[in-house]
């Protein structure tokens, strides 16, 4: 089986998962005590208007008919109306998505290499000082409330030292190509914006990356420990290879396989963390949108963010699976 065939098949398998996801979000929105028709119409609207909306949005139909409209809405981009923003949810999400994407990308960029490196050091120096230090660092990462870490960083680097800004994404670049400020500022050669945006993303991306970094460190450590005991490591040493080559070429390549799976799962933490991080740093992404929606009881917005985050997470795991198949020759694609 070719790689693209595998990807196509996996994409097809994505469909039932997404339907499952919508089943859950649909059930949750059913629980919501507030009357959506009333929310759309506004508090002062006469009952006849509310009833009209009720008809229009099929709220009087049986559950399964409502679900049919719901899921067709999901697939056709009709994700409801966000009354806090006074525009469709899909539009808001499209606007806010790049900011969240940029932030998570940076956080991943920090977390993966650092986490792998620390995990390797920890495993190689098992039960020695570097191992203890890196374990404490990693366990702190999974134990640290992300919002608290963000606040401490703001306190130190904004309030006291004044090195970094504490809110927003910085100046918008001269032209918009991708919606990622830093990339766009480079593409439009807007150095002023580039420096400002870089300065703005440092604290939030560090805040967001710590927990993921910690998870990757721990996983790399334990899978390295497991791999280092295996026979082929002894073979590699018996060949006369230096420790560096044995560890990075022979052990790490194998240890990365389980680490990769965990990185996919850690992405969930990253998306959850994004909500908290964006709230603290007033980062105009989907997370802050969700926070704002919670405080204004904008249910379609909350459900929209939830659904989109779940879809992103599912796709992230698909990418992980594909990389998995690439890294491990024992996995025959499609089996």
């Amino acid at each position, binding site marked *: 089986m070719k790689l693209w065939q595998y990807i196509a098949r996996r994409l097809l398998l994505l469909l039932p*998962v997404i339907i*499952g*996801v919508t*089943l*859950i*979000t649909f059930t*949750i*929105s059913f*629980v*919501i*005590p507030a009357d959506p028709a009333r929310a759309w119409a506004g508090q002062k609207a006469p009952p006849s208007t509310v009833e009209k909306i009720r008809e229009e949005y099929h709220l009087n139909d049986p559950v399964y008919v409502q679900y049919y409209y719901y899921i067709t809405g999901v697939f056709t981009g009709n994700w409801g109306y966000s009354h806090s923003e006074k525009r469709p949810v899909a539009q808001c999400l499209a606007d806010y998505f790049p900011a969240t994407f940029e932030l998570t990308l940076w956080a991943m960029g920090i977390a993966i290499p650092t986490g792998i490196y620390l995990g390797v050091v920890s495993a190689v120096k098992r039960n020695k000082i570097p191992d*203890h230090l890196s*374990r*404490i660092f990693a*366990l*702190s990462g*999974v*134990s*640290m*409330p*992300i*919002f*608290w870490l963000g*606040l*401490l960083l*703001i*306190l130190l680097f*904004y*309030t006291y030292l004044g090195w970094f800004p*504490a809110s927003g994404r910085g100046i918008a670049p001269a032209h918009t190509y991708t919606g990622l400020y830093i990339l766009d500022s480079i593409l439009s050669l807007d150095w002023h914006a580039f420096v400002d945006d870089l300065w703005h993303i440092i604290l939030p991306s560090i805040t967001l990356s710590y927990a993921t970094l910690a998870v990757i460190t*721990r996983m790399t450590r*334990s899978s390295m*420990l*497991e791999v280092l005991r295996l026979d082929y490591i002894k073979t590699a040493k018996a060949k006369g290879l230096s420790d560096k080559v044995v560890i990075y070429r022979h052990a790490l390549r194998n240890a990365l396989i389980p680490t990769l799976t965990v990185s996919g799962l850690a*992405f*969930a*933490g*990253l*998306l*959850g*963390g994004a*909500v*908290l991080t964006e*709230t*603290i740093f007033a980062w105009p992404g989907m997370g802050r949108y*969700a*926070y704002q*929606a*919670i*405080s204004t*009881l904008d*249910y379609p917005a*909350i*459900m929209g*963010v*939830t659904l989109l*985050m*779940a879809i992103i*997470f*599912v796709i992230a795991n698909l990418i992980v699976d594909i990389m998995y198949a690439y890294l491990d020759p024992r996995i025959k694609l499609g089996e």
Partner: protein
Amino acid sequence: MAEIEATRSFAKTHESQIKEFKYILHLIRKSPLTLAGLILLIFIFLVAVFAPWIAPYHPTYVGGQQYWPYDASKMLDPPSWQHLFGTDDMGHDIFSMVVYGTREALYIGFIVVIVAMLIGVLLGAYSGYIGGWFDEVMMRICDMFFAFPGLILAMAITAALGPGLQNVMYALMVVWWPAYTRIVRGQVLSVKENQYIEAARAVGISRFKIIWKHVIPNSLPPILVQATMDLGNVILTAAGLAFLGLGAAAYTADWGVMVSQGRSWLISGYWWWSTFPGLAIFITVLAFNLFGDGIRDILDPRLRR
């Protein structure tokens, strides 16, 4: 005489278990991080139990009407000997609130994990043992839940139910049960193939009895390790929800709420209101993770040497 005899025979028949237990104790002693986790946990439990004696002030209000010690001159006082962690904008003693907050954090953690675990053990054991369509449906349902980032799903559920501590706990239970179901099911599947289960079945012991007496006890250790680490995770997630304004009401002795409330003051330099409750969350979760992580390493024969 009989007692000595009994002890001796106990020691004899349980020789291997005693040896194993001693070995585990030895490993805990040799692993400073696990030991640190254990000591921290004991400390945290003591604080929760003796909160009224440790806290110098009542954490919130007395008699439903009056904040105490409400004192305009005490608003946002920095840490001092009188108020170890300072005061909030109503003049509450933050140290007292943090001490009482321990009770709430542990309460949330234990109730959520125990309920999730019970649901998981029941459904997982049944699903794994029965197999067939029930198992298939169960696993697909779990998959649906796993497709969500935990905090996001909990956020959506709590938002739908309406903010509040109870609803946060319901939401966390909904988010956490599938993980246990899957672990237990996996354990059951591996235990099921063992000889003694086959034997029990051959002798004609009922299905329920086999699950209850043989399957569940044997899958317990990994579940308990998971539960230890999850206690920390649940407390952390609950604090996150409280921070987003979905948890308890303002001025409750709840760590997440306190960090959230102190947040706007922190930027202007009133750092203590958010910092100390946050530190309490961190230390508590860290303690559970240190201990759980250490125990997992110790129980994992592959990592032993």
